């Protein structure tokens, strides 16, 4: 029950999502009634494209959405689409995405970044890799991974945007040599016998930021109580998921249904539990698998996370000039609202606005000197 001073301005909240495993905390917040506990009612809207999610957020057809971190910053900076002030209310999940290479490539020895680079040198032709959205998480992670292996994603290969449902078919047909996307697509490629897992996203950046709860800045400004309630509901849903394998299995059952991810339990179940296989006989229990809360460590809208996407957009020429990295992140990431929701739900809040990470190429990103960081890479647009 919402406290009197925090009564939501809007009780019915239309929240968009894409049919991917990491929409789970949003779905469970609705299914478990955690939304009603905080005085709101989530109405879930499944969308077919990230472009549609973006247009509906900025146009007002959706109040909030499960959306790519990179996309939110792209819209805020006016990359491609019309510029619109946006807001990140919280980070929804970390890890759990994957880079898949075709079986044809694996048969020729390309199993990871280094062997892929070797193959590109020994058998030059046009290699094509798919991502889910030009400014999005998967594009940025894929380019980072390629560049870390010495492959220039803009010049040495062709990177294309492909709707995830088409990725596996294109891999089979040989139109794609690999792709980076969320689950179920990585594991689906394995099951269908057309792809192998060359890298998990957590290999590129352990505990990297994932999808966020995004909204237009306008909506947040006019509905702070509603947004706070939404964050609170999602914090509790994430906590519930991470609590136990039993909860994760129950969650798997729910999101596998046609209303949500619309896939078989066996396609998404294993990786939700951290059980990975790479399609070449290697199996492991991943210490950095998909997680939704981790006692609050997942959800805080670290400024350094938002800034990272800005630096990568700059690196690849999506941004023509250096923005004021810190100021933009401070405007987009709704730290104060998040802290209030965290307090309401007994969620631990980190002391710092930035966090420090070491990525696959050994580089450290901690939010400091963003302009220098963006320019520091040997491989980039410039």
């Amino acid at each position, binding site marked *: 029950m919402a406290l009197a001073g925090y009564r939501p301005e809007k009780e019915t909240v239309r929240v968009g999502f894409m049919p991917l495993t990491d929409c789970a905390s949003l779905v469970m917040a609705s299914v478990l009634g955690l939304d009603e506990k905080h005085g709101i009612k989530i109405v879930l809207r499944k969308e*077919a*494209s*990230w*472009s*549609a999610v*973006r*247009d509906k957020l*900025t*146009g*007002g*057809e959706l109040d909030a959405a499960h959306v790519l971190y990179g996309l939110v910053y792209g819209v805020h900076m006016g*990359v*491609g*689409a*019309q510029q*619109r002030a946006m807001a990140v209310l919280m980070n929804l999940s970390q890890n759990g995405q994957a880079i898949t290479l075709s079986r044809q490539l694996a048969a020729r020895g390309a199993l990871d970044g280094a062997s892929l680079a070797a193959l590109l040198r020994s058998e030059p032709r046009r290699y*094509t890799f*798919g991502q*889910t*959205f*030009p*400014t999005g998480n998967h594009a940025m992670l894929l380019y980072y991974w390629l560049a870390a292996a010495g492959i220039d994603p803009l010049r040495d290969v062709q990177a*294309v*945007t*492909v*709707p995830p*449902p*088409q990725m596996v*078919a*294109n891999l089979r047909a040989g*139109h*794609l040599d690999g792709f980076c996307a969320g689950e179920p697509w990585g594991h689906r490629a394995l099951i269908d016998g057309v792809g192998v897992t060359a890298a998990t996203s957590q290999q590129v950046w352990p505990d990297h930021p994932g999808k966020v709860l995004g909204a237009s800045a306008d909506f947040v400004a006019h509905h702070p109580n509603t947004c706070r309630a939404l964050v609170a509901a999602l914090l509790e849903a994430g906590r519930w998921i991470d609590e136990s394998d039993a909860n994760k299995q129950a969650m798997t059952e729910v999101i596998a249904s046609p209303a949500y991810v619309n896939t078989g339990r066996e396609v998404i179940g294993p990786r939700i539990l951290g059980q990975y296989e790479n399609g070449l006989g290697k199996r492991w229990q991943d210490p950095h698998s998909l997680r939704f809360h981790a006692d609050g460590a997942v959800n805080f809208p670290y400024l350094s996370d938002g800034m990272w996407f800005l630096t990568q957009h700059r690196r690849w020429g*999506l941004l023509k000039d250096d923005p004021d990295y810190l100021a933009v992140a401070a405007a987009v990431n709704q730290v104060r609202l998040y802290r209030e929701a965290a307090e309401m739900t007994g969620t631990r809040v980190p002391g710092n606005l930035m966090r420090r990470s070491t990525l696959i190429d050994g580089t450290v990103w901690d939010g400091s000197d963003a302009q220098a960081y963006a320019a520091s890479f040997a491989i980039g647009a410039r």
Partner: protein
Amino acid sequence: MKLSQHAARSLRIVVVNPVVNEGDAPDAALAAQFQRGNALRIGLLESGFDIVASLPADIFLPERIAQLQPDLIIIDAESDARDVLEHIVIATRDERRPIVMFTDDDSTPSMDAAMAAGVSAYIVAGLQPERIKPVLNVALARFRQEQKLLAELSDTRHKLAERKIVERAKGVLMAHHKLSEEQAYQKLRSMAMNKNLKLAEIAQRILDVEDLLG
């Protein structure tokens, strides 16, 4: 061959159609998209528009669009291939092209929202020809206005740059040959005429020589 000479008929349109993935169960949303697409194509043809190509939303879409260079691309608002077009928008952002969507929702707020979101126009399904034409014309008008403004801006910038070059070349001539500004200008003009070059071109040559020897 088209019989009429209406301006709208020179508009080259590409329509993007849904793709059915092999092995997928029949999908109500996809069936609806196909229906809307058929109605749209019939409506466009009846209105005399030139559908240059009706393309599947597959992996070859960007290449085909690059080859065809259409004036307008029409795609269903609910299509998952909208993200593919997003990639094209960013890759070709120095050459603006309107992307028009169409859908079942004919509520005016949605149309206003779509316009505000940067979609050039918004077509309503159930498409009678009379309804298509005005909306497409709005899309085209806005596109052409934008192109005109961009061209004017580019032209202005270019002229300004040329002016600066001519001014600097005059300065070089004035310094080297102890000329007045008017004399230097006349010298530039006669050099240009003798060599059959534009003023700005001869000015640039003078500056290049100055860089080499100065």
